[in-house]
């Protein structure tokens, strides 16, 4: 028997999902060790051996998502760097794209760059937009700049020059010169990381990569060693923002590709579970103590984009789109001067956390309101790591009740209503941006707080069905396990789409495909069948934004401009409700994605035995201004075919599902709990 292990390292817990050759799933949770990254993996492997008898030497595949990169960025404790930019353009990071984060506020400030202007050195060189060299590189000046960088005491240099997307020669030469003069320095060239037009976006991508590189490298190196020491012989894989995986070794260079590691694999996991159970359109809802994130899966496919927020920064490499819609269970409620109840944006975070956790928090949070209404605290949560103190929750909510001059339970219910309506507004925006309606989606909650709030939010959005996966706590870990090996390649083209330019386009794609194959075979060492996906970023001439349009290898080969243009027009029609088939069309970037499948588990569909489940006991919950009797169920005992009627509470070790009055639930053949709102339709 061999085992495939997926790990997701979160802020508080690290989740393990393990599949054996017979597709049996084992799950495990251990505490994360943020001060000793990698230790939680060792702890987990030992616990797996102890609890399930899984020998490390029998681990045939190991993949994990890490927060090391993203935490380095958020906490701003990355490398001290220099930026080598083209002379005359040294302010590229400070200027960014000018637009302010809050356009109403006179006090709005842009994010402080990761490299101060002081440490930006202008290079005497210039390449033009056609790739020709106007001013040759002054190599003596480069050497002097390297000496200066050393004198600053930096550990790395990011190199990003104007028009290097077209001709990377000067960036590459600078890299060589740095290697000669200062081999100890890390170097990132913008043209190596993401060779795309738009100097700010390319520069900041390179800078972020350089900024997290030393920490990522140390972390991955120590993890590789620890795994070897534990006896895991297979090479560890790391999950990527694009929903794929790659060898951990490659993560030491392509650091920027793994920033959204865990978030992306959560969505991959959600889409895997949804597909298995026959759901096409899913809104995944991941709610933790401090965050509430939404991703849309349309026709079984996660949505991709570039422009995802990571802390104060925007990520410009392809990533699974995830939007923040609020502050999660720790959001603090307050009554403003006009007597209006507000929820967030302030959060009690994980320290001290909600009042009911008894860790010193005193201000009322969403989680406290759930306790007061009786939805939480009826059974053990978070593997017994947290004890719910109901009296503390009531005291905290009581301060609001007094100001509002209502009963504490009414105050609590109001807190839930306001928190939910804030999330409603956030989620509506996500649907609106995709030009779609909430009604055509199923809500899939996970994370500690998702299943708690899902029915409330679904009812507000007019969503009929809520799908609570069998193992909501390990969706991200499972996502990593089912991910394909995958990488993105891009080259800026910037040509009109017309017969004369197609030969060049064909050769661009050929080069990209060759690089992609090299990556898969040589760098990744994956023997599997390669899947090459072609697309182009296209726009109408004169537009300032482009649309990624899927195209086929055949159109490229046949130099079929019409089919490519048609695909773009259709895509434009789909996204923007109109197109102009007579207008001139411009290809900005050529893209190739290479993927190779990794084995997928084949979860058995268990037989349904239709029966009304029996609650362990009956508890009181407060909803709609009334006390209701609610059945308290243990998720572990709910068999396929079991049905329950709301109001009910379904408890499991990592989350609690609140089933509101009017909802009816049943357990499907994969163990998913499916809740349907009977008050709709």
């Amino acid at each position, binding site marked *: 028997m061999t085992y495939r292990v997926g790990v997701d390292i979160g802020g508080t817990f690290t989740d393990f999902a393990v599949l054996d050759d017979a597709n049996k799933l084992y799950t495990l949770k251990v505490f994360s060790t943020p001060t000793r990254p990698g230790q939680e993996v060792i702890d987990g492997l030992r616990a797996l051996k102890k609890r399930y008898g899984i020998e490390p030497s029998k681990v045939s595949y190991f993949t994990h998502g890490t927060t090391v990169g993203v935490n380095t960025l958020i906490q701003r404790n990355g490398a001290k760097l220099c930026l080598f930019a083209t002379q005359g353009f040294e302010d590229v990071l400070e200027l960014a794209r000018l637009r302010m984060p809050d356009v109403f506020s006179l006090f709005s400030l842009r994010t402080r760059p990761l490299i101060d202007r002081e440490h930006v050195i202008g290079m005497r060189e210039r390449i033009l937009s056609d790739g020709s060299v106007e001013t040759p590189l002054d190599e003596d000046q480069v050497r002097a700049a390297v000496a200066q960088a050393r004198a600053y005491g930096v550990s790395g240099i990011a190199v990003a020059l104007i028009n290097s997307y077209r001709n990377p020669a000067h960036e590459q030469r600078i890299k060589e010169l740095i290697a000669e003069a200062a081999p100890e320095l890390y170097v990132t060239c913008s043209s190596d990381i993401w060779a795309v037009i738009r100097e700010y976006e390319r520069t900041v991508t390179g800078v972020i990569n350089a900024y997290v590189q030393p920490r990522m490298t140390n972390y991955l190196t120590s993890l590789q060693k620890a795994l070897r020491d534990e006896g895991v012989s297979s090479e560890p894989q790391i999950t990527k923002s694009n929903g794929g995986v790659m060898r951990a070794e490659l993560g030491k260079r392509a650091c920027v590709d793994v920033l959204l590691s865990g978030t992306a694999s959560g969505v991959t996991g959600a889409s895997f579970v949804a597909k298995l159970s026959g759901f096409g359109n899913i809104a995944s809802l991941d709610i933790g103590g401090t965050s509430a994130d939404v991703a849309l899966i349309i026709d079984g496919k996660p949505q991709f984009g570039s422009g995802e927020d990571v802390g104060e920064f925007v990520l410009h490499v392809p990533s699974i789109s995830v939007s923040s819609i609020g502050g999660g269970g720790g959001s603090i409620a307050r009554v403003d001067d*006009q007597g209006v109840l507000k929820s967030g944006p302030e959060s009690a975070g994980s320290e001290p956390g909600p009042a009911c956790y008894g860790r010193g928090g005193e201000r009322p949070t969403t989680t406290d309101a759930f306790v007061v209404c009786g939805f939480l605290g009826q059974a053990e949560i978070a593997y017994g790591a947290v004890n719910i103190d109901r009296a503390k929750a009531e005291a905290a909510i009581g301060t609001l009740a007094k100001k509002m001059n209502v009963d504490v339970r009414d105050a609590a219910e109001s807190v839930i209503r306001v928190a939910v*309506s804030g999330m409603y*507004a956030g989620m509506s925006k996500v649907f609106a941006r995709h030009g779609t309606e909430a009604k055509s989606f199923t809500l899939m909650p996970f994370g500690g707080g998702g299943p708690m709030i899902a029915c409330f939010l679904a009812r507000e959005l007019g969503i009929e069905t809520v799908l609570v996966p069998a193992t909501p706590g390990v969706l991200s870990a499972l996502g990593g396990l089912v991910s394909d090996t995958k990488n993105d390649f891009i080259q800026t083209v910037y040509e009109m789409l017309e017969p004369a330019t197609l030969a060049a386009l064909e050769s661009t794609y050929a080069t990209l495909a060759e690089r992609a194959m090299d990556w898969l075979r040589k760098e990744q060492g994956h023997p599997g069948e390669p899947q090459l996906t072609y697309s182009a970023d296209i726009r109408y001439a004169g537009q*300032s934004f482009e649309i990624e349009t899927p195209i086929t290898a055949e159109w490229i080969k046949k130099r079929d401009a019409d089919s490519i243009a048609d695909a773009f027009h259709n895509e434009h029609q789909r996204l923007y409700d109109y197109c102009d088939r007579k207008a001139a069309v411009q290809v900005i970037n050529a893209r190739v994605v290479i993927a190779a499948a990794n084995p997928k588990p084949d979860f058995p569909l268990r037989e349904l035995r239709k029966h009304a489940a029996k609650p362990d006991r009956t508890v009181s919950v407060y909803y709609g201004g009334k006390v209701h009797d609610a059945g308290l169920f243990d998720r572990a005992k709910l068999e396929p075919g079991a049905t329950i009627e709301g109001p009910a509470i379904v408890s499991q070790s990592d989350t609690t599902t609140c089933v509101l009055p009017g909802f009816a639930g049943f357990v499907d053949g994969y163990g998913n709990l499916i809740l349907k709102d009977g008050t709709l339709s």
Partner: protein
Amino acid sequence: MTTGAATAAKAEQNEQGLGIDKVQLQVLADHSLAAADAMASTLYRTAHSTFVKETEDFTCGLATPQGQTFAAPKGFGSTWFVGLDYGKVIGLIPSYEEGDICITSDPYSGFVCTHSPDIHLWKPIFHDGELIAFSVGHIHNTDVGGAVPASLSRTLTEVHQEGIRIPPTKLFRKGELNSELVEVMLTNVRVRDQNWGDLKALVAAMNTGERKVLEMAGKFGVDTFRNGIQALLSYSEQQTRALISTIPDGEYFFQDYIDEDSVGGSPCRLALNMIVKGDSIVFDFTKSDPQLTSSLNVPTGGFERHTLLLVGIFHAFHSLMPDILVNTGMTRPFHCLLAEGSVLNPQFPAAVGMRSLTATRLQDVVFGCLSQALPDRMPAAPAGSISIMNVLTSDPETGRRVMAAIDPLIGGGGAMPFSDGSNGSGGNGGFLKNTPVEINEVEVPLRILAYYLTPDSGGAGRYRGGLSTTLIFKVFAPHSVITARNRDRTRFQPWGVRGGRAGKASSYVVNEGTPKEQNLGNTDIFTAQPGDVIRITSSGGGGFGSPLDRPAEAVLHDVRQHFVTVDGARSEYGVVIVDGKVDEAATKARRAEMRKQEGEGHFDYGRGREAFEKVWPKETYDALIERLRQRPVSWRFFLKQRVFAHLRDAVNVDARKLHAAMDHVESEFPQLRRKAEAAE
């Protein structure tokens, strides 16, 4: 349409309390925001023009049956129209039926539209036959015909030259498109497909708003909805009044100037006497310039709460109270006084196309009053000029004509009471994105030589004003037309406060440092020839607090960042830097010396304004406006220009000299005296 006395009475009652469960109110606020966001998404997503996508010069919102906007999207679209009151324009249509959508683009009908490129729509929303709300919104069309491409120019003198104007009328009647009207509109514009595309997008947004309102009415019940939207206005009003109550009662006066009241003209003064009493404010703008014979007039119809008069308030109050609900309720505690036939209340047919330049300066005037009232809480002046540069040139090899917007020029934010101003853009000018250098170079046959933050451009201070941007580029083709609309602040600088110095003025120069050097000042349109190198620098934000109080280490840090030069550190901050280190002794001595010279005033206006006010003190300008106001509207601008020409070489104009000059100028026109005598 009858709005119903009962509804009005209910609205009245809500002035007192909010008249609705306050939990329900917050839920309704969230849903209204989501509805407005959905409208804006629809519009943004389906609009055709790049202009809409890049500048977000549009609005969407929901209004009460009385036309008061109660919901606007957050972080989407323009910040200027959130307080728009559609009441008057709604009243200009005799009756409404389900499926109607109304339109106007006339700046002189109802004063919702403020220049002809803005197409405004409003759609009545009926629930069981009862009118319960309106979807409202506007979009700025790149061109609506008229004398010049893009329809806007300072040179225009009558609204008739500024493109086609649609009076309030029905675009859809019971769901049926008025296609004859559309054909008339499109026949009169330069890029018909784009306008039609954008109009369709705006119609789609109106329909999204209707759908969302009906969903809300269904979900909460129509009574709750009806009362709730009034309560949202009252809530915003109460928040605003609570904030006003923290402003000490009293009168606060501030004035600022536009560099030129017409192409190459004299300054135009905007003046505000802000009278704060309890929880309400009177804005007396009557000392502002008379109506101009250029397109810089702001059409308000004399409406006492016109949104364009209060944009400064939206920015300032949102900054001071970040969770304030921004809607028309915010405008209720304000009462604006405007002189008929003035730049802020022009008479038909004055041109109004470039009102945004004036409206931007007007925000500075509001900020200036608030700064005196709340000296610890308000920032110094932001750069104050928001301009977009366009280039029309041709490819030297192929001859292909290229027209493109190359970059916005905004300038720094004002220094805050607790932080330096933001660099490059900020304050009330933070909504535009720049165009990447690489995109400009591949799209337009020109070469960008440099694009950077201008050292020493931020007003010196305990907190430094935000730096301006400098763009230098070279053109290669003959007759390349460079357009830079809305340029200002080359003469009158963004002011500093509480010892902080004014930000540096903007400048625009061709072939600098060569025999062919030419200073372009505020030029809108310039024709460049092959090899010309153009440098344009925006203005810097004002500083806050004395620069002598800025820690020497912070000044040294700025020097290291290239934000301040060694010379600037010495001359403006009194910090002497030698070999990259602060010379403590020399700094102490220099700062002690400089402290003796420091002024006392709340504001530092910078040299441009000081020089002007030496010639034209406030009292003299007051007297000028008083004299001009006695003359017919059509004479005022003409006489002002004559008087300024007459006093061109004066070094100090007091009241006596002014009256003498006025008498002299007027004596040339006996018809004026006859008219005045007849009036007596």
